[in-house]
């Protein structure tokens, strides 16, 4: 993990404020390696979601750099930015809000691939000519029956909708998939299934994850390394198996105790 070439994403000194009074993120630096899952924990308002929005370039950072595959993500504009977007995709917290209720599952799943006709993910190479077959394969990859392509989101349960959102997220074979609280709005019984699916897909496709959650158990299950945030600042980062180590920051210990107590 020391060689610079192993790093997919290098974020340095990232800062962002929404207005004079709200400093959402201040001086955050970290790296994500190729194929690595970096977990981000912290309470609401700690800047986790702001971090996701910046990496997706839905917001513009005030300061700092984001280097993805050697490209300065923070500087891209217009069509260059649109082309670069396919490298970073997202699975949002609430799948009901993330799917347009008027569009069929087929239309939602195919939206990214339709936008990048020149992109051919490895797992779709043999059927890139056939949108229908690609959509069917994507659904089966997330464990949904291909016949459901013609359904509308309201005909699916929360967990099923999240699977559709995941199918969308992986459809361009991004280098980095950001999961922003992907299980927070799901039934407890479904949460584990979604986590397992995400983990399987990561191994299968070799993607890197930024896994954001306030659920420490889920983050520990998913991640290689963990980053703890508080009030827009990085508290500490460490290997996931060191979560319970004695030298953890008091704030991290507090978060762990809140779960185990």
């Amino acid at each position, binding site marked *: 993990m020391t060689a610079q070439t192993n790093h997919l994403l290098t974020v340095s000194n990232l800062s962002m404020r929404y207005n004079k009074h709200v400093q959402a993120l201040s001086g955050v630096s970290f790296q994500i390696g190729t194929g690595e899952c970096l977990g981000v924990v912290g309470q609401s308002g700690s800047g986790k979601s702001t971090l996701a929005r910046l990496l997706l370039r839905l917001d513009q950072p005030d300061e700092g750099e984001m280097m993805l595959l050697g490209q300065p993500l923070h500087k891209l504009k217009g069509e260059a930015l649109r082309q670069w977007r396919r490298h970073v995709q997202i699975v949002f917290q609430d799948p009901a809000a*993330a799917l347009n209720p*008027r569009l069929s599952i087929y239309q939602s799943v195919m939206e990214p691939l339709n936008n990048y006709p020149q992109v051919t993910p490895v797992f779709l190479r043999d059927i890139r000519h056939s949108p229908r077959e690609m959509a069917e394969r994507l659904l089966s990859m997330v464990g949904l029956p291909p016949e459901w392509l013609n359904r509308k989101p309201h005909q699916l349960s929360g967990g099923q909708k999240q699977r559709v959102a995941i199918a969308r997220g992986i459809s361009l074979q991004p280098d980095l998939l950001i999961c922003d609280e992907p299980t927070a709005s799901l039934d407890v019984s479904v949460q584990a299934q979604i986590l397992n699916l995400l983990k399987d897909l990561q191994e299968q496709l070799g993607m890197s994850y930024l896994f954001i959650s306030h659920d420490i158990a889920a983050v520990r299950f998913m991640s290689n390394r963990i980053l703890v945030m508080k009030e827009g600042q990085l508290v500490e980062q460490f290997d996931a198996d060191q979560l319970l180590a004695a030298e953890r920051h008091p704030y991290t210990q507090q978060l762990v105790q809140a779960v185990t107590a």
Partner: protein
Amino acid sequence: MAGFINRYAVWIGLGVWLLLAVMTLLGPYLIPHDPLAVDMGKRLQTADATHWLGTDHFGRDVLARLVAGAKITLGLTLVAISAALLIGVPLGLLSGYVGGVVDAAVMRVVDALVAFPDFIIAISIAGILGPDVTHVVIAIVLVKWIGYARVVRGTVMTEKGKAYVLAARVAGTPGVKTIFRHLLPQALPEVLVLAALDMGKIILMISALSYLGLGAQPPMPEWGAMLNDAKMMFQTHPVLMIYPGVAIFLVVLGCNLLGDGLRDRLDARGEW
């Protein structure tokens, strides 16, 4: 009765429009009289087998004029509403999606126009341009596009921050495509309701401005102009004012029922 009207409002409204369309298309074949043919020998006749609704003070067949008036009303209203939609909807989309300076510019124009009652502006514009139906339509369009721009802008502004629109951006969907695929369909139901309600108002405005002498000019058989024509004979032949009056009333009622009915249905389900 109220329940019946509420439940079938959309169909009653559509029925009125269908009737109007049928009158426009088939009227000239069913009624053998020229709406403009003057026959001073047949002035002010009461209804009989040849002239079902009688004749006016120039001996013209009243039913033929009403039917011809339906065509004019329908045509002018559709032209006015289409023009208002074509101006208002794109400006609303642009204003809501782009925001910033563009939004500020469009909204200041809107603010200026909404500061005055619709009718005052329409009368002023029609007055400045001179009496003519075309000028009345221009005046109405200049007043009516605002409503569409505001409704569409509002919807776009609330929707564009939602996760599915952000998801489209992340998925690389270009701005224009996002607008047409995700945002416009969201605004369409409200636009439709507003358009149906506006049609009634526009018919009233055209008729009222024509009644005031600013719109359709004699001998054009526009309903408002017919009212104006007949007003000097109100004491002796009130039916000449009642016929076009009832026609206007029924059509406006139909439009309002259609608009209200659509609003109830779209509210209830939130989708088409």
